[in-house]
């Protein structure tokens, strides 16, 4: 397997994540799809690091993970508060603000 395959896989994962954001209604799932996108990036980074023979990309992947973790904290807090108020985590229910 050449490195290109990893890159293509990552791209596919990224696309799946993006499509997931578009088609899923549950906020948690939508958020997980975003996480999937981030992880596809990690895969890309690691692949490139491997290709260039440096560890920069791997280090970057760690950074991304840390940031993603922070994002989860914030995101879950926000989604939770919404859920507790509305008893629903569907993003489609939250459309008071429009036009």
């Amino acid at each position, binding site marked *: 397997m050449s490195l290109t395959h990893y890159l293509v896989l990552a791209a596919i994962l990224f696309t799946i994540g*993006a499509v997931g*954001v*578009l*088609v899923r*209604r549950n906020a948690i799932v*939508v958020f997980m799809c975003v996480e999937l996108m981030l992880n596809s990036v990690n895969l890309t980074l690691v692949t490139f690091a491997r290709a260039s023979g440096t560890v920069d990309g791997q280090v970057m992947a760690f950074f991304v993970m840390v940031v993603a973790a922070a994002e989860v904290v914030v995101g879950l807090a926000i989604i939770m508060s919404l859920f507790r108020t509305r008893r629903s985590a569907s*993003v*489609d229910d*939250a*459309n*008071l*603000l*429009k*036009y």
Partner: protein
Amino acid sequence: MDTAPADGLIAASWLLIALPLAGAAVLLLGGRRTDRWGHLLGTGTVVAAFALGLLCTLQLDGRRVDVDLFTFVSTGSLDVQAGLLFDPLSAVFVLLITGVGALIHVYSIGYMAHDPRRRRFFAYLNLFVAAMLLLVLGDNFVALYVGWEGVGLASYLLIAFWHERPSAATAAKKAFIMNRVGDVGLALAIFLMFAQLGTVSYDGVFGAVGTLAAGTVTAIGLLLLLGACGKSGQFPLQAWLPDAMEGPTPVSALIHAATMVTAGVYLIARSAPIYDQTPTARAVVLAVGALTLMIGAIAGCAQDDIKKVLAYSTVSQIGYMFLAVGLGPVGYVAGLAHLLTHGFFKAGLFLGAGSVMHAMDDEVDMRRFGGLASRMKVTFVTFGLGYLALIGFPFLSGFYTKDAIIEAAFDRGDGWGYLLGGVAILAAGLTAFYMTRLMLMTFFGRPRWEPGVHPHESPTVMTAPMVLLAVGSVLAGFLLVVAFPLESWLTPVFGEPEEAEHVVAPLVVSVLVTVVMALGVLTAWLFVGRREVPVTAPVRVSPVTRAARRALYADAVNESLFMRPGQWLTRALVFFDNRGVDGAVNGLAATLGGSSSRLGRTQTGFVRSYALSMLGGAVVVAGALLAVTAG
């Protein structure tokens, strides 16, 4: 044509204009305080102007005197000096204007005695005299134009003097507008002179007019003629003049008979050097004159309003004058002589008519007159003399001056000359007819007065000017043609008179004219004098009569050709401006607003559709960048 510097009294000739102007200013600004003596001031300034004019004329001695006043407008290559030209021609007009003007001012003291706005009437009259004097005294076309429109303004104010009457207000407006149409011609003529010659002064233009191309001169001549037609009520702009009779009668006498309406003749005579260069334009002047004199004469035959008859008569008589000046050098003097005598007898006739109306409680319908000869002797006699002078009764003034014009027409020698002469003679017959009709309906026959009318002679302040004008009507022709020939007085202006070669002997013409006139009188007597005059106009009349009553449908033509299409165009444009131009702007705003709400719908509030738009945007951005780098 040397111009002499101003000296002596003539240097003060600007006072001629300034005096009546000051009178008008005092009367208008002074307000009610001047009510008691306003008319005296108004009359006094004109009398003083007349005296000054007379003295200046006596000092003139055949010179042309230029009076420089101040720089009116000077910019670029245009230089318009405010200056006066006092020469025999303008002197004649000054005397006519101030002389007849003074008499009519005096008459008005009586005529307007009971009008609460008499003061303003005199102010307007003074304003008119000042503007008219500027018109004839200016030494360049711009000054002439200023006076030209000035008299138009005065005419407007005076026609609309009784402005509560919608008919008066409308007539005034009509007069002003039709005059403005003519003024466009005059203005364009001035522009053309400036464009071609770089000057608008008489001296400059007349001195260089010979260098111009024939077409240009013809164009100038025709444009000047358009102006003249407007002011003088000539075809095709004649329709305003009869309506102008809505004004007080002294106004009709002074402005719409004796002076202002003859300004067109003055203009053409003054522009003789231009017309001398362009036979084409002169031929058009002739045609206009001949046509108008017939139109006026025919329309005059069928009117029942005494002032309208006189108005159409004026139209017709000015037609004679146009005919004369259109003939060129041989006709200028004849035309001007007729202008002067016409000034006397027509003013006298109008004042007489005013006197009659005064007596008849402002009734103007001749069918309601009759038998006034015994009640108003002075009026009858003076009016009768004016009448005789107008129809060309031998040895009264009209006889001399009208015959001279007809002679001159025949003297052209060609077929056109005979045609014009024939038309002029025919019109003389018609003149005799309608004037006799007027005399018979007014002064003879059985009284047909409205109940409660008690005719009485007018006061002396009114009859005295009538008497003086009647004397003028009788003598002026003889004086101007035989005793002190106008021809020689005007020699410095028009050059030595050529010895006319008569195609038709003058005596033959005179006899012919007199016979035709007698026929006209006889016919009138047959129609009117023998029979009882019905109090209301008969309805079932021949188409000719109907056409004559409606002045050959001039108003109808104007209305259907200009007024109604104009109104329609105005309405259409208002609609277009509101819906089209403004509508486009408002439509643009509406489109923006509409697209705003439609685009706003894309902002659905669903986070997933936002994400989709971002993804779409990202794809487009990536695609665009790739396209740029690849391409």
